[in-house]
């Protein structure tokens, strides 16, 4: 998938763990051993439910940066069909609204590469599988990229039809800065 495209559809790989990696069209993926890590930025949210839209807005803003080897996508719901979306990437950056006891607009960063999301933070999703569950399902099935980061922006107002609140928009800016900075500093991993 070319960087910069908006994706509301996704594709599920059918390869079991340990088999040859294939892309969504079923073609075998051949990688250079020392290639630059491919990063997928996935903004998640509901554009119609107030602060829940912030993950989508971060993704849209990052697309304008045109970062090298970074693909930006958006998803309007959490669904197992997201799993294949990140199959061919070395690093997955998820951005979603979260609710904890922090102030609206606070930005949380979690490295989920090895450990689950802390349970005190719950994703705002109202769908059947929340994001934390989906990540752990993918981990259990050996379908997660080696590096997984979650940027959670504290939301408060999830009213249907409302815009993202001002405090959360401040968090959006901080989140973008954090992602760009961490990508700049991140070690160049060997592709696996």
């Amino acid at each position, binding site marked *: 998938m070319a960087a910069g495209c908006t994706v509301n559809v996704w594709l599920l790989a059918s390869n079991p763990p340990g088999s040859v990696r294939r892309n969504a069209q079923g073609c075998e993926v051949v990688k250079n051993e020392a290639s630059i890590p491919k990063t997928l930025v996935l903004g998640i949210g509901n554009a119609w439910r107030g602060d829940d839209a912030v993950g989508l807005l971060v993704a849209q803003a990052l697309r304008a940066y045109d970062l090298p080897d970074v693909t930006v996508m958006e998803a*309007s719901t959490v669904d*197992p069909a997201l799993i294949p979306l990140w199959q061919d990437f070395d690093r997955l950056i998820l951005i979603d609204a979260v609710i904890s006891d922090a102030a609206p607009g606070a930005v949380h960063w979690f490295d989920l590469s090895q450990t689950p999301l802390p349970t005190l933070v719950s994703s705002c999703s109202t769908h*059947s599988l929340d994001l934390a*569950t989906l990540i752990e399902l993918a981990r*259990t099935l050996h379908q997660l990229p080696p590096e997984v980061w979650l940027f959670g922006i504290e939301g408060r107002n999830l009213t249907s039809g409302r815009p993202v609140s001002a405090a959360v928009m401040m968090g959006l800016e901080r989140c973008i800065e954090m992602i760009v900075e961490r990508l700049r500093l991140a070690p160049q991993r060997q592709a696996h």
Partner: protein
Amino acid sequence: MNTLTTKTVRVEALARVEGEGAFYVKVREGKVEDAQLRIYEPPRFFEAFLRGRSYAEAPDITARICGICPVAYQMSAVHAMEAIFGVRVEGPLRELRRLLYCGEWIESHALHMFMLHAPDFLGYADAIQMAADHPDLVLQALRIKKVGNDIVALLGGREIHPINVRVGGFYHIPKRREWSRIVEELKWARDAMAELVKWTGLLPFPEFEQPYEFVALRHPEEYPFNEGRLVSNRGLDIPISAFEEFMVEEHLPHSTSLHAHIKDRGAYFVGPLARYNLNFDRLSPPVQEAARAAGLGPTCNNPFQSIIVRGVETLYAIDEALRILEDYPEPDAPYVQYEVRGGVGHGCTEAPRGILYHRYVLDDNGVIVSARITPPTAQNQATIEADLRAFVEPRVHLPLNELTWQCEQAIRNYDPCISCSTHFLRLNIERV
């Protein structure tokens, strides 16, 4: 003091239900005094949003009500509008609508069966735990689900909240060649699903049957998606335009969702079990055979066995999609022409969870004057509560955790989509 008959139990979250919700069961002296499925969040006012909007916007606005069954909302909306305009969508366009519905049934049923319901039967807290022990099962389920997602993505224009459906047909028709990969996956899915239906038949089911009144669409020739009369196993046989004469909705204090019942009769049951019981003879012989191989007869009154029925329906949807795609006559035009006029129109189609009824009043310019939407979960709410009453009483001696678990499982039999009926829900059981 906790005894067999006096206990207080509180559970704060009802997991693995689409949306969030609560149920409340009050037991005194071993007898169930009250059972309520509670829905807290205010109604979502979609019916009010629709007033003053063009008829043409109804499919896209109502598709937003549910991320799991948007096709059902679109289909009920367009059929209601087409009834007002006197337009019939026939031939290839009608087939493509069935194909789109196949996609939605496949993805919705696969999600519910294997991610939400199967862990109950196998004793896992969730799909993650189940995936650790049964990775191949989960991977197969995800692959089957993906075929459904792909159909909706290609024909619906995108996967979530599809946008390609319009009154009279579609905005755009995919070319035959675009379907080739999906056809191959469907062929794989047909074999895989046939095995998985057998697998569901081996699950342990509680003994539980109730004298339900099942309500579903029935068509002269087909297993129902978009069209048919509303029938029941107790003699109901009406056109969908008579829905509101027979089905009554009322507000109850404990829920912000409306409770539905059949006038002068009581609660009724919609969804896969109802469709199956009223339309077994409309399933193709191989699918009937798959049902029998899983231990089902032509009727099934145990809602816990709905997981088998969903499997049978998934197999049917895969098979039906293949039938349509093997022929796939590309229509001459993506939609049928019509003239806008005022009037009242009714649409009722079979969402994965059961009949979804829409009624619209349009003015002469096609502007929506009023709208009514009755989703399947609201129709099942009274039956779910009746199940909880009947289910809990003989099991009141069970340890609390086990009883709670089984009650949640009993609710999940209905695959309730609380986001359709409202939005959030939480769980609360009390024994006094």
